[in-house]
C-alpha cells in the first residue's frame, strides 16, 4: 500500500538543513552550560578566597596588635605559662595550662583563713581603688 501524501511519515523526514540547525543548537547549548559551570566555579573560588583572606587578615591584625585572645585576663595564669615557654610542644603546653588551672581551682576551693575571714579585717569602699606598681 502506497502511503498517502498526507500521512505523518511523509511529512516527518527532516531536511539536512534542519539537522544542521539542531546540531548547532545542541553545541551552543553545551557551550553555554560549560560557560555557566565555569562562571559558577569561578564565583565559588573567588568567594572562598575572599573569605579566607578576610579571616586571615582579621586574625593576623588581631595577633600582630598584641591582642591575642589566648592571653585574655580570664585565663591569665594558664595562658601566661603557655605563652612564656616558646619552645614547648603542644602536649607540654596543654599540661602546663592544666596545671595552672588546677592551681587556681585548688586555691578557689580552699577554705578561707579563719583569722581573716571571721575578723573582716578588709576595708571596704565603693569605687575601683587605684593600685600602685613599684619596685618589689
Amino acid at each position, binding site marked *: 500500500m502506497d502511503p498517502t501524501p498526507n500521512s505523518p511519515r511523509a511529512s516527518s523526514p527532516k531536511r539536512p538543513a534542519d539537522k544542521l540547525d539542531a546540531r548547532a543548537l545542541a553545541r551552543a547549548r553545551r557551550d*553555554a*552550560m560549560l560557560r555557566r559551570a565555569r562562571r559558577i566555579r569561578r564565583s565559588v573560588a573567588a*568567594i572562598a578566597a*575572599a573569605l579566607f583572606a*578576610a579571616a586571615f*587578615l*582579621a586574625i593576623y*591584625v*588581631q595577633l600582630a596588635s*598584641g*591582642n*591575642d585572645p589566648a*592571653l*585574655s*585576663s*580570664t585565663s*591569665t*595564669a594558664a595562658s*601566661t*605559662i603557655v*605563652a*612564656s*615557654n*616558646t619552645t614547648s610542644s603542644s602536649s*607540654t603546653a596543654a*599540661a*602546663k595550662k*592544666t*596545671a*595552672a*588551672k588546677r*592551681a*587556681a*581551682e*585548688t*586555691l*578557689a*576551693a*580552699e*577554705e*578561707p*583563713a579563719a583569722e*581573716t*575571714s571571721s575578723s*573582716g*579585717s*578588709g*576595708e*571596704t*569602699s*565603693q569605687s*575601683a*581603688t*587605684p*593600685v*600602685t*606598681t*613599684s*619596685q*618589689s
Partner: protein
Amino acid sequence: MSAREVKDTFACFGSSCSVLVTGDASAASAAEAVARARHTLLGWHGSFSRFEPDSELSRLNRDPRTTVPVSLPMALFADAVRGAGELSGGLVDGTLVGEIEAAGYRADLGAATDLGAALARAPQRTPAGAGGAARWREIGVDFDGATVTRPLGVMLDSGGLAKGLFADILAASLSGHDAFAVSCAGDLAIGGRAGVTRAIRVENPFDGAVLHTFDARAGAAATSGIGRRSWREETGAPCHHLLDPRTGRPAFTGIVQATALAPSALLAEIRAKAAILSGPAAAPRWLPDGGVLVFDDGSHEVVAAPPRVTLGELAAFARPFLGGGARARLRAPPPPSQHRPRSRGRRWRSS
C-alpha cells in the same frame, strides 16, 4: 557597680601585698576571697623564701636528687624560670643564686641605700647580656607527675618571677568576681567580670611620687628596679638584686626602674626586668604593651602601646567594603531587565 570593694593590705615577700575584690562570686564572697588570697600569699611566702632553710624552695635547691617532687605552684615557678630565660634570650635568669649570694644578698635586707648616692658611686653604665652558662635551659618540669628535673647545683631564685606568677594564679581564681586587683609586692594583676576601669599608678623610685597613671580594665603591670633591694659591699660599692647574667654582678645600665604592662603579671615582670637590663637604647622594645622607663638622671619616658585593633573593630571597619556589598550581591535578586527564568530550556529560547 553597686557592690562594695573589699581590700586588704599586709606585709609579705619583704614588702607589701594588697588584694582588692568587688562583688561576690559563686565560689566565695568578696570578703572570703580576700581572706583566702591573703592566706595563700602568706603561705607562698613561707614556701618560696630563699632565706628560710625549711622552705620548699630551699629544700629543692639543696636536694641531691636530679628529679624532685614538688608542689604545683613550685612546678609552675620552675617552668616560669625556664620560660623567662627563653623569652628574654637569657637576660632574665632565675638561676643566679650563687652569684646573688656572692654579691651579698644572703638574708632579708634592711632599709634600701640612697639611690642617688648609689648611682654616684656606680660603675660605668653598660647593657647587660646573657650568660654563657644559661643554666635555666637545663630545668625540666613534669606537670603530670609534679616534678622538677635539673642538674645538681642548679638552684632557683624566686625573686620577682614568683610574685608575678602568684599574681596570675590569684587573678585566675578571682576572675569570677565583678572586679579585683592583686598586688604582689608591686606586681599587679587586675580584671573582673564587670570590666571596671582601674587606675594603675607608677611610683617614682627617687621620691615615691606618682610618675604616670595608666587606666586598664584587665591585664597586669610589673615594676623592676635597682632602688629597693640594694645594699653596699664592704668596700662601699653599691649593689642591688638585678644581676647581669654575663658577669654575675649587679647591672648598672642607665635605667633605674622599668614598668611594663602585659596581659599577665609574669610576662610583665619578665619584660620589666629585660627592659632594665638591656639598657636605654633597647629597653622600649621590651614594652610592646606600654610602660615607663626611669633613667639615672631622674628623667622618665612613657612608652605608649601601639593602637590595638580588636576583631569587632576590624569587622566594623570592613563591613562597608566586604559585608554589605558582598552580602547584597549574593542575596538580592537581579534587576528585572536582567532577570532570567530558572529553567534552562526557557532561558535558551529567550536568548
